[in-house]
C-alpha cells in the first residue's frame, strides 16, 4: 500500500494556535481536517507537507451550521454527513445541499470528510464547491494576529488544487446569503457511484411574485474551477420561469464552459451534458421555489 512521505504531526489547541503553527512552520505545513482529500494525496506522494496540523480537536468550535442574520454560516470542520442531514440547510436552501451531499463520495467518506477540506482541495469536479459557488457563498480566511478577510468563492478557487489561501491562513467559515423564495437543485453524471463528476450542475433561483429575482448557476468539472455561468444568471433574473428559458440557459452553460477531454469523456460530450444538467437543475429548482 502506498504510504505518505515522512511528515511531522501536531494538534491544534485553538484556531489561533493552528494559525500560529502555520506561521512558525513557514509554508511547509498543511491544515489537516477530515483527511479524505489531503491524506490520499500524501499517500500518492502528490502532496508532501513536512508537517500537518490536525484541527479535529477543534470539532466543537469548528463544526457548526447556524443562521446569523441574513446568512447561514458553516464551520470548516462541519462534516459532509452533517450537511447532508442538516434540517436547517434543507429548510433555508431546500434540496440543493442534500442532493449534492447525497452523491458526494460515499457515506464513509462523508462521515469524516469536511466542508473546509473539500473547498481547500479545490477540485473542480467536487460537488459541495459547486453548490457553494452557485449560492455565491463567501469564504472567511484568518491569518496571523487574528486578521480576517472575506473572499467570494470565485476568487477563492484559483485553479485545480489551488486556492487564494496564503500559507499562513486558514479557512475559518463559509457564509451563504439567505434568499426569499429559494429553490435549488444539484444534478450530477458520474461514471459510477462515488466517483467525481463527469459534469455536475448546481442551480438555484429565488422567485417572488412569479418572477425570478435572483439566480445562481454553476457547473463543475468543466473548467479549471467550478464555473459560474454568468450569462445564464443574467438571463434568468427578471424573467418568469419557463422550460424554454431554462433550455436557453442550458445552451449558455454548454457554450460558456471550458471542459477538457479526459478519461471521463471528450470535451464536446461534457459541454453537452453541462447544458442538459443545467436545464434539468434549473427546472427542478424553479419548481421547488414555487412550491
Amino acid at each position, binding site marked *: *500500500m*502506498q*504510504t505518505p*512521505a*515522512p511528515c511531522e504531526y501536531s494538534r491544534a489547541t485553538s484556531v489561533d494556535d493552528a494559525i500560529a503553527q502555520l506561521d512558525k512552520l513557514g509554508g511547509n505545513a498543511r491544515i489537516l481536517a477530515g483527511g479524505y482529500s489531503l491524506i490520499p494525496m500524501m499517500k500518492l*506522494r502528490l502532496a508532501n507537507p513536512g508537517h500537518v496540523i490536525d484541527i479535529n480537536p477543534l470539532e466543537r468550535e469548528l463544526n457548526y451550521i447556524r443562521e446569523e442574520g441574513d446568512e447561514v454560516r458553516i464551520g470548516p470542520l462541519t462534516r459532509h454527513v452533517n450537511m447532508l442531514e442538516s434540517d436547517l440547510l434543507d429548510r433555508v436552501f431546500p434540496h440543493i445541499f442534500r442532493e449534492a451531499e447525497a452523491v458526494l463520495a*460515499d457515506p464513509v467518506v462523508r462521515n469524516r470528510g469536511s466542508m473546509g477540506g473539500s473547498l481547500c482541495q479545490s477540485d473542480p469536479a467536487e460537488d459541495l464547491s459547486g453548490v457553494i459557488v452557485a449560492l455565491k457563498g463567501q469564504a472567511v480566511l484568518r491569518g496571523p494576529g487574528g486578521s480576517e478577510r472575506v473572499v467570494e468563492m470565485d476568487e477563492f478557487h484559483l485553479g485545480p488544487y489551488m486556492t487564494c489561501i496564503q500559507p499562513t491562513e486558514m479557512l475559518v467559515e463559509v457564509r451563504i446569503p439567505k434568499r426569499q423564495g429559494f429553490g435549488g437543485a444539484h444534478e450530477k*453524471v458520474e*461514471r*459510477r*457511484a*462515488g*466517483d467525481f463528476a*463527469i459534469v455536475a450542475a448546481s442551480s438555484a433561483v429565488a422567485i417572488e411574485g412569479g418572477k425570478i429575482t435572483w439566480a445562481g448557476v454553476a457547473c463543475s468539472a468543466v473548467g479549471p474551477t467550478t464555473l459560474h455561468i454568468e450569462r445564464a444568471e443574467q438571463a434568468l433574473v427578471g424573467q418568469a420561469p419557463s422550460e424554454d428559458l431554462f433550455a436557453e440557459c442550458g445552451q449558455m452553460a454548454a457554450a460558456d464552459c471550458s471542459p477538457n477531454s479526459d*478519461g*471521463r*469523456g*471528450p470535451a464536446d*460530450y*461534457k459541454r*453537452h*451534458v453541462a447544458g*442538459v*444538467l443545467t436545464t*434539468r437543475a434549473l427546472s427542478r429548482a424553479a419548481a421547488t421555489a414555487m412550491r
Partner: protein
Amino acid sequence: MATVETTPGRHPEFVSYADGEKFGKIADAPIGYGHMKRKEDARFIRGLGDYTDDVRLPGMLHSAILRSPYAHATINSIDTSAALAHPKVAAVIIAKDLETLGLAWMPTISYDTQAVLAGDKVRFHLQEVAFVIATDAYAAQDALQLIEVDFDVLPAIVNCRKALDPDAPLIRDDKVGQTDNLASPMWEAGDKSNCDRVFGEADVVASRTLLDPRSHPCPMETCGMVADMNPDTGQLNIYNANQAPHAHRTVYAQVAGLPEQNIRILCNDIGGGFGNKVPVYPGYVCAIAGSIVAGAPVKWMEDRSENLASTGFARDYLMHAEMCSKGGKITGLRVDTIADHGAFDSTAQATKFPAGFFHIVTGSYDLQAAHCQVKAVYTNKAPGGVAYRCSFRITEAIYCVERMVDALAMEMNVDPVELRMRSFIRSDQFPYETATGWVYDSGDYAKTMKLAMEIADYEGLRAEQQEKLAKGEMMGIGVAFFTEGVGAGPRRHMDILGLAMNDGAELRVHPTGKAVVSLSAQTQGQGHETTFAQIVAEELGISPNEIMVRHGDTDKTPYGLGTYGSRSTPVSGGAVAVVSRKVRDKARQFAALMLETRAEDLAWEKGRWFVRGDPERGASIESIAEYAYSTTNLPEGLEGGLDANAVYDPPNLTYPYGAYISVVDVDPGTGKVHMRRFIAVDDCGVRINPMVVEGQIHGGLVEGIGQALMEVISFDDQGNCLNASFMDYLLPTALECPEHGLELGETVTPCPHHPIGAKGVGESACNGSPPCITNAVVDALYHAKGIKHMDMPCFPARVWAAMNGNAQPVQ
C-alpha cells in the same frame, strides 16, 4: 525458521449465537448435497483469516519495486547508491544482480520469456526496474525515490493493429530471430473452405468489428509473497496467495534450479483470485532472490496501482466477425482476431491451444460451418492475458458469438430470442460435435431459454419498450445464451508447461469415522472447505462437519494444477468423488469381514453397507473405520486403515450453459445506463450446494456489469496506463446492481461423464453477462436511434457518442 500451521486449523466452535436453537444452524448440515452454510465463515467473520500480508516471520524484511515511468525506453544506467545509503535499506536488486543468480528473465506460462527486472529496456509503463529491501515498508518506498535511472525514451505502440505495421518499432529485440511484433504464429480452427461455401449460400450476413477491451480481474487482495530461504538448510518456504501452488512449486524449481522437495508453498487464505493469481510475477521472483541475497525472509506486497498496471490483465481481443443465416437460421460464423498480449506473452493457455479455447466461438448453435483465426501481437502494454473468471478465452468467444447473434438478428429483422431458439443445438443432438471440434456433453437449451423468458416476462418487456419509445425514453433488453467448456482437462489434449491438467485427492477416514480430504485445488473464496466436504459426505455418509478439507500446502496435499477455468468441481471434484468411492469399496471389504459375508453380497446406502436381502445386518461407516484400524483379521491383499488416493483425468470438458436477460434504461440526455434488472438461468448440472452456486453466479454477474459498463484498462499515445488506481479503474458498487436484486433460475442437466454429474459454475455468470448487458445497451440504441453497435465499456460518454453515430473502441 518459523513455520505456520496453515490449513484450516483455526475453526472456532460455531455455537455462539444468542439464540442457538433458532439461528445456530450449522448442526443442520445435510449429509451430502444441499444448502449448507459455509464452514470457512467461522474464521472470516471473526477477522481470523490468514492472508499473505498477515504473515509475520522473525527478522522479516519488507520491499518495494521501482517501476518505469515510460512505456518504452532504453535504460542507460541505474544509480542505486543513494538508496543503499538509506539507513533502513538492506539491499537494492537490479537486473544485473539477478543475472548472477540466473534469474534476470523468467519463462512465462506460454513459453515466452519475461524480464524479472528490466535491464536493457523497459517495454511497458510501470514495468519492474529495481527491487528495494528495507526494514519496514515505508522506508522501502522512501528509498525508491532515491534511485536514479537514466532512460532514453522510445516510441511506444499501444495499438495492436499498428504493432503489425512493417515499420513498427521492434518491441522484443531481446528475442533471437524475432523480426516483427508477432507474439505467436497465426492459429486457426474450423474448415475455411466449407465456411466460405456456407457464406456463399447465405441469405443474410452480419459483419461487426468487436473489441473485448482490456480489463483486470482485480481481486480485493492484491498479489504478494513472503519468501523465506533458509541459508543453512536450503529450504525455501513461500507464503503466497496463488491459485496453483503445485504448478508454482515446479516452476520455481525449474527457474531457480532449486530442488523441488526443498520448496514448500503455503497458500493460506486468498482474498479473491479470478485468474489474477495464476501466473508467476516478477515480484515473486524478486522476493525469492531477495531472501537469498538478504539471508532473511522478505515480504513483497504489491499496492493497488501495481496490481492494476502490471499483473495479469484480461481480454484485449480485437475480433472481426461475420455471421450468416439461411432459411431464417444461423448457418455460419467466421472470426479474424488480433490478440494483444502486451510486452511479454504470458497468457494463460493450455499448451496445445495458443488462442486458448477461443474456438468454442460457435456458442450454443448448430452451425453448418465455422472458421476462426487468431494472431497475437506484442505491444508496449503490461503482459498477462490471464483467464479472468474464464476458461482460457471463452469469455471473449462468448462475447463474440452472442454479440454477433444480436447483430444478425438486427440484419434479419427478427427478435434475438427467436433467432437463438431457431438455431440452438437440439437436446437430441448431444453429444454434439461443433464445427470447430468441441464435443458438448449435454443440454436442453430451449428449456433454459424459455424459463428465463418466463421469469423476465420477455413479451411484457418488449411491449414496455415500445411504450417507452413512444414517450422518448430509451430502454434496452439484452439477451445472451452461453455455453462454456470448463474443467481442463483431458491429459491427452491439455497441459500447461508440459504438466497434465489433472488433479489429485487424498482421503483419510480416521478410526473414529471422521475424515480429512486433501486437495490440489486452491480456494480463493469459492467455499471448497464446505462443498468438497459435502461431496465426501454424499459418497460416504459422514457429516460434512466431520470432514476437514485440506488445501494450500504443497507439503501436505497431492499434486494437481489448481483452481482456475472453473476446474475445481469438474476436475478436483471428480478426484474427490473417485477417492471417496475407493474408500467406500475398501470399506466394503471390511464390512464383509465384520458381517461374515461376501463383499459382493453387500449393498450400500448412504453411511452403511448392509447385507442384500437382510437390511438389518449392516455396518456403519464409523464402525467400519474403527474396525479397519483395529482388526487383526486381515486377509491376504487387504491393508489396514481406511484411506485412498486418486488422480482424476477428466474424459472431456464439461459444458455448463445459461440463458441471461438484462434490462437497462438509458438517459437520452447524458448516455448514462441504469441497470434495472438481470435474469440469469444457469444449468451447471448437479448442484452440490445451491447457496454456494448462487453466490458464484451473483459475483460473476456483477463482474459482468463492471466489464460491460465501467471497467477498462486504457492507454494514452505515449503508452501510459490510464486506469492504474481505483480512482479510474471502477469496480461496480452495490448501487450499480439491480436495486431489488438479481433474479436467478435453474435447470439441471447432469454431465453424463462426470462422476457426480456436475459441470462447474464459477465463471458462467462472468461469461454470459458482458454480452447480455452490451446487447441491452445496443438494443436501446437501435430501437431509439437505429444504432447497431458499440463496444464495451458502456459508460456515459461512450454511450452518448454511440448515440450520435460516433462509436469508437477504447485504446
